């Protein structure tokens, strides 16, 4: 079996599917994974896995959203009561991270619709889908360790700030701006991935080390220079300062304002890139549906912040920073030649959005979470025993 790029992506898609599927459908995730592994042709295996992922992901998301209200014996077919729309509404607003995932998936889907209508190269669509898969996989993997790693948050912020500084000093330079890193022929913008994560982490855990990391990040944005990302720092920290002011936040905010001022002094002459920049305007020139897809998809990015702010008073600082961060990215895309997040071509914002969901609270633990295994789950365990033995896991 060849372990080329196609095979690796196919395996990644299968793992993402397995991470997304609820326990009652796990055997189907294994079924897709094993079937994919048995396909000799790497490209056909990749197509099989991606198509399975696209076909089953909506079902997986729906099943996860409905899980708290599903009777223990079923997989989404039976409800404990109430109308389905109300059940869906309650399930969604009680699970901010799941809501964010759903918004991300729909936003990327709307972006794909826009790009398809605008006849963007198919490679662009595939890259956005792959970025979503990578982002959600990282979210699933990191989500399990986030709580345990909270004591290392300050150090992590410093490491990420170091990466941003390294990008400013050593990254790919275009028209005087150094914001990108070339990975396998793709230009990745680390700030769009790391800065939202850093700000969300800072909203939850502050201290001297974390504040030092934010100061370094502000300097990096000034050096790159990147007005959009420097503005994200300012608005994110300003939101945090309003909701939960303290000495660390104010120091970080002062540094961010200074960095942003430095970016304003320097000219930003980067031209607009098709399917990336200025698409709020150009999409309506293509077709009204494309324009609506872009606007709708972009608006979805703020939904978790709005819903969380109105429903979860305990974590308002987190939602405020989340909303400020992504509002800034959207506003920058509307005002200048900066990437349009999620709906335009570009993997960095998609991965960054998915990772920023890490900070959104999971739902309060449901009583069913520690319930004894059901008969169907026991059956599944029995049925999967041969499979797991065969896979050596």
């Amino acid at each position, binding site marked *: 079996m060849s372990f080329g790029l196609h095979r690796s992506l196919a395996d990644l898609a299968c793992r993402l599917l397995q991470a997304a599927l609820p326990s009652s459908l796990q055997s*189907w995730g294994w*079924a897709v994974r094993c079937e994919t592994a*048995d396909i000799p042709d790497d490209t056909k295996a990749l197509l*099989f896995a991606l*198509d399975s992922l696209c*076909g089953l992901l909506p079902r997986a998301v729906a099943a996860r959203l409905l899980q708290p209200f599903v009777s223990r014996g079923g*997989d989404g077919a039976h409800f404990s009561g109430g109308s389905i729309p109300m059940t869906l509404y309650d399930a969604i607003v009680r699970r901010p991270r799941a809501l964010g995932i759903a918004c991300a998936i729909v936003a990327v889907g709307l972006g794909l619709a826009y790009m398809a209508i605008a006849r963007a190269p198919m490679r662009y669509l595939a890259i956005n889908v792959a970025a979503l898969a990578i982002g959600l996989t990282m979210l699933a993997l990191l989500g399990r360790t986030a709580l345990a790693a909270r004591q290392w948050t300050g150090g992590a912020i410093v490491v990420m700030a170091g990466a941003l500084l390294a990008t400013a000093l050593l990254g790919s330079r275009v028209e005087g701006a150094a914001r990108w890193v070339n990975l396998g022929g793709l230009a990745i913008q680390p700030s769009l991935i790391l800065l939202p994560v850093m700000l969300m982490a800072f909203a939850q855990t502050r201290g001297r080390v974390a504040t030092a990391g934010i100061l370094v990040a502000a300097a990096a944005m000034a050096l790159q220079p990147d007005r959009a990302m420097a503005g994200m720092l300012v608005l994110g920290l300003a939101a945090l300062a309003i909701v939960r002011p303290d000495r660390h936040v104010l120091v970080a905010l002062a540094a961010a304002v200074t960095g942003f001022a430095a970016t304003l002094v320097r000219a930003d002459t980067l031209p607009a890139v098709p399917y990336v920049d200025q698409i709020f305007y150009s999409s309506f020139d293509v077709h009204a549906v494309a324009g609506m897809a872009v606007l709708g998809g972009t608006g979805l990015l703020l939904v978790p912040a709005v819903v969380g702010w109105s429903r979860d008073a305990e974590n308002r600082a987190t939602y405020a920073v989340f909303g400020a961060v992504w509002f800034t990215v959207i506003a920058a895309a509307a005002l200048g030649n900066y990437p349009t997040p999620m709906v335009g071509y570009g993997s960095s914002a998609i991965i960054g959005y998915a990772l920023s969901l890490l900070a959104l609270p999971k739902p309060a633990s449901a009583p069913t979470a520690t319930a004894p295994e059901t008969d169907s789950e026991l059956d599944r365990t029995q049925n*999967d025993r041969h499979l797991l033995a*065969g896979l050596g896991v």
Partner: protein
Amino acid sequence: MSRSRALSPHARMVLAVLLDAGSQWSHGYELARLASVKSGTLYPLLIRLEAQGHLEAEWQMPPEGGRPPRHAYRLTASGVQLARANPPVQPVTPAFVHREAAV
């Protein structure tokens, strides 16, 4: 409880391939190829058929070592009835004919 809803052309094709296989077990990739449906259409359909009792699924260990196990499917008695009551609406594909000839 299954609903009496008109089956899609894809569902009819998958049922026809499974009906054609009789008591033999079929696998996902082969099913998708013979029925000319994408895997993203096939698996949600298989999940629904199994939940409604029309499909039987089991894990099969590979005859040779080093290969992954495979999830295999065949129609139950009610599935056979469903397939017979819902024949494909489109002409059978060459792949499907080939499979019939091979059987």
